[in-house]
């Protein structure tokens, strides 16, 4: 009796060993980086964590196929290393000693990746299923790009500034034009006591010393050469 049991047990283990080994068909390698993810809060990887992992994979298979036939014991782990990396394979208990096709496992894991990650407090990067690529989440783009908004604000301010300066310049020009026309009229109308020669009112001139014209001041030769 005992012998039969032992034989059956060893057969099962051998069979399992053949199913789960590195680079076996439908086997996947998993790598965990607990310390880099959690730092001081890192938990140690022991048999209970392995049990949880098997449970999560079984859960994922159940969700995916909605058959509710996968058992925790169907998930086999092997080649545990200190890295914390191992290989796993999912067997099909209904059909003896065969593994579930890799594509199904992959799809199941992909569908429930988030749940699996959160169970271990890890992320896609720290709980890696090699060969199963994860879908990266794109950045959220607002409907109107932010830069266009800022650009329009600056553009409007600049154009407003230019318009203001140009208009005030024109207004000032017109005003000075009107004033000069008025002063000219004023001169024509009244017999002004203020005589203006060459644009300079005479009374501010010191008639004795006169005005020195700078153009000629530079000239050393006051007298024409012979």
């Amino acid at each position: 009796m005992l012998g039969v049991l032992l034989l059956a047990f060893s057969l099962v283990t051998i069979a399992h060993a053949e199913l789960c080994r590195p680079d076996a068909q439908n086997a996947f390698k998993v790598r965990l980086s607990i310390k880099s993810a959690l730092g001081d809060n890192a938990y140690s990887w022991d048999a209970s964590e392995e049990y949880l992992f098997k449970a999560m994979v079984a859960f994922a298979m159940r969700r995916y196929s909605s058959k509710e036939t996968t058992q925790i014991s169907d998930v086999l782990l092997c080649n545990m290393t200190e890295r914390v990396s191992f290989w796993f394979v999912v067997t099909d208990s209904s059909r003896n000693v065969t593994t579930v096709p890799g594509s199904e496992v992959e799809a199941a894991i992909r569908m429930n990746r988030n749940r699996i990650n959160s169970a271990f407090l890890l992320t896609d990067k720290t709980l890696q299923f090699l060969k199963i690529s994860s879908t990266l989440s794109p950045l959220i783009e607002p409907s109107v790009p932010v830069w266009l908004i800022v650009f329009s604000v600056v553009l409007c301010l600049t154009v407003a500034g230019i318009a203001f300066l140009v208009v005030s310049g024109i207004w000032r020009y017109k005003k000075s034009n009107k004033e000069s026309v008025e002063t000219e009229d004023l001169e024509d109308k009244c017999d002004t006591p203020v005589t203006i020669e060459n644009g300079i009112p005479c009374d501010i001139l010191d008639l004795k010393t006169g005005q020195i014209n700078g153009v000629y001041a530079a000239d050393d030769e006051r007298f024409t050469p012979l």
Partner: protein
Amino acid sequence: MEKSRPLWDNPLQFVFACISYAVGLGNVWRFPYLCQMYGGGIASVVVSFFLSMYYNVINAWAFWYLFHSFQDPLPWASCPLNSNHTGYDEECAKTTSTQYFWYRKTLNISSSIEENGNIQWEQAVCLILAWLVVYLCILRGTESTGKVVYVTASLPYFVLIIYLIRGLTLHGAVNGLIYMFTPKLEQLANPKAWINAATQIFFSLGLGFGSLIAFASYNEPNNNCERHAMIVSLINSTTSIFASIVTFSIYGFKATFNYENCLNKVILMLTNVFDLEEGSLTADNLDSMKDYLTTTYPNEYAELLPQIKNCSLEDELDTAVQGTGLAFIVYSEAIKNMEVSQLYSVLYFIMLLTLGIGSMLGNTAAILTPLTDSKFLSSHLPREVISGIVCFINCIVGLVFTIEAGNYWFDIFNDYAATLSLLLIVLVETIAVCYVYGLRRFEKDLHLMIGHKPNWYWKIMWAFASPVLIISLFIFYLTDYIRSGTLQYQAWDATEGQLVTKDYPSYALAVIGLLVAASTMCIPLGALIIFITKRLKKNVSIRA
């Protein structure tokens, strides 16, 4: 009546007087009715014109980066995803995200100068905005420019001080500073280093562009130009050193960050391949562990060897990015790793903008002052319209730099439009002032203006040291151009994700030749034209 007007003995004096006008320094009030812009004057204006055509593109880029700094996270902080969201965009994966943002998102650069591509509308509108801002500042002439330069001169210092404090407190900044202050003695022996240093000071002070002259022409005659000259040079040099301290502390931070990243990648790879326990490999024991692994697993390690990068802090510090990309790629890479990166990014690009717009003001002043001083134009059009037309023409030409190959044309302008011609212009100016106009007369003018004669240091510098220095620089540049044979440029290869060297096609070489010739030939051409016209006039008056 007519005899009291001074006359020239021969046309050559007239030419050189005009050249001395280009030197300015208060002579404007003495010869107001003389020459418009001949000889040295036009050469400065031509160089300034070329400069303003392409320089504002830098401001356009600064605006682009500034507008993109208002996002969280910064758009150059991470790579965009590829089409089916399984990984990062191919081109971005091969290079860094900041380089990708610069080459692909900002420039959308083509793979060579021959492939023109279309105008990038985003860059074009940024360029138009940059020109509108410049127009706003120069609209009213010195009245408005004078107020604007208060901001453009002081704001960069505020930002630099903030960056100094932030930079020095960054992790790894010390490495950068040590790198900056350790002289590389073998580099000191290389003449190229000295040439680059001399050129840098040259352009940094903006000599030969006519901007200083244009600005000086608005000064009072009794302005103490000697004191101002010393102050400006001192401020310029100390600012350069100050800015270098900031820059090198940021370099140090970036280099240390990249170095540590590189180390971590190697550690991760080794840990994964050999399934070692996490944390057993650290930066300190990496070398000893590598030896251990080589002995224990020789085969696997040998397979892995090509992928293991030798991380070196020196190499990271040495990586210099070429050209104008430097300001945008290196700084944005450092900024994205800081906390509150949006704030630092906004500050940095506002500083770049004020610096760039300040330079543009100088350039446009150099072009506009002769134009508005000329009686012909200023009688027909008001100053606002002249400025508007100049800005408009420059903007339209500048659109060339917004096409996909635009950055390559930009580099051509950046490298060749100013270098040789500026040296020649300044050389002519110095010789004209010291030897043709006469150092004695110049001394007397200065005595009139500032109240005392310049001391012997200035005289020796003007008369001997400067011409000798400039001539030697000139000769070095010429020999360098001749020796390097065909000119080459760096093109961005999208498939490789890095720069490759290519030769210029013939039409690009023709443009380069035209650029250099256009500005250098102005001086002798101008002199020739005046000589001929004077000769003709003399002949006509003799015959009549």
